[in-house]
């Protein structure tokens, strides 16, 4: 539970999809002109990331990973399908996005009007595939993967909404002509990334097991070091 909170906070602020990894930059820049559209796409990203990351986790752990197929038969223990991960991940993302779009269109036209136009955009949003591609490198459990997906989505949402708010205010600024639009936006994003870097100094509220162990070892080492010294001091 504590570990989950750590991952949640980390994926929103410290490992922010935009400011730490630049994932989903294209749509980030394209839709951040107006606050409303930015919020719409942000919500869609939270939703899609929150569901496709766990889906891809399942696919990775029960299909692609080396020895993942042992749940069918012990004979498959040596099979490693990791080569196929790109195709499987992108197929899951694209299929899920398409399905959601059709379902939303059918059951909730009002939601479709506000969110639906963004869904096709999301299939090719790097942050969704990026979230899936981080899974093999980080050994998450299922609950952790869900938290990571949601947290990353919220981080993306925060980033896009805040940039859109700044860009709306930019309309009143007198920017040099060639710098207008993309150029000044990049400089703003850079400064925002600067701000987000300060989150890197956060001490996470709960330490994970490794950190705890490391700290315990440190303290025990220190106490071991102290004892002989103090004995020596006394002997002197």
């Amino acid at each position, binding site marked *: 539970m504590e570990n989950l909170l750590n991952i949640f906070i980390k994926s929103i602020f410290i490992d922010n999809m935009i400011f730490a990894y*630049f994932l989903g930059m294209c749509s980030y*820049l394209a839709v951040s002109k107006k606050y409303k559209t930015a919020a719409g796409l942000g919500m869609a990203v939270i939703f899609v990331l929150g569901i496709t990351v766990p889906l891809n986790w399942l696919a990775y752990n029960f299909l692609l990973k080396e020895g993942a197929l042992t749940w069918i038969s012990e004979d498959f223990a040596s099979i490693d399908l990791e080569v196929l991960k*790109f*195709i499987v991940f992108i197929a899951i993302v694209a299929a899920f996005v398409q399905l959601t779009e059709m379902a939303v269109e059918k059951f909730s036209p009002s939601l479709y009007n506000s969110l639906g136009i963004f869904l096709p955009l999301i299939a*090719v*949003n790097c942050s969704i595939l*990026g979230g899936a591609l*981080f899974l093999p490198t980080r050994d998450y459990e299922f609950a952790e993967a869900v938290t990571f997906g949601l947290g990353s989505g919220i981080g993306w949402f925060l980033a896009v909404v805040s940039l859109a708010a700044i860009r709306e205010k930019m309309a009143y600024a007198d920017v040099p002509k060639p710098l207008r639009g993309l150029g000044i936006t*990049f400089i703003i994003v*850079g400064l925002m990334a600067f701000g987000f870097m300060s989150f890197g100094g956060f001490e996470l509220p709960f330490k994970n097991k490794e950190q705890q162990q490391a700290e315990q070892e440190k303290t025990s080492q220190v106490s071991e070091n102290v004892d002989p010294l103090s004995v020596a001091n006394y002997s002197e």
Partner: protein
Amino acid sequence: MSTETLEKEVKEVKKPSEPLLSKKRKALLTNPLDEDNPITIQVLGICSALAVTVALKPTLVMAIAVTAVLVLANVVISALRNTIPNRIRIIVQLVVVASLVAIVDQVLKAYSYDVWKELSVFIGLIITNCIVMGRLEAFALGNKPWDAMLDGLGNSFGYAWIILAIAFFRELTGSGKLFGVKVLPEEYIGNGVMMSPVGACVLLGVLIWIIRSRNGYVED
């Protein structure tokens, strides 16, 4: 009589075919370098442009990987363009690109493992690199394979020189090195900001400023 009509037909077929590097086709190749640059003007493929440009070596590898994927995907999609149903074209494109990326990924893993490790997820992210999808949608779906290949080459060179320029400045000012070799005097202390995302963003912003003030492109 019959041979005459045949010859006529042949002539008629030959007429529209233009030289392999006509003016229009040269433009396909050179436009993306400057006035139609994928990064600075079309705003495509930003993610990797910022993320991998910490040093020149991974950037060069990335540029080559993108070139390979973009050119091949353009040719394949353009060859298939009349058989792809419109509704599922995005998924078809994604599958083609994903297969190509999987090949590139395996080749890199086999022949330059260090760089492959450094690039980590960003090789996979070529799949959703907007340059690839953008060019497939905008060009390959409506043009012949040869034109599509030139377009792919042009755009990936346009992409390559921008990311190499960014990487050059980032590596030089960030650690005083070029391709991992120290070029600035030993006393130079690396500028950490240039190695961080901040440096990449601001540098790209300034680069866009310079390029746009040169070619007069103004965004409203």
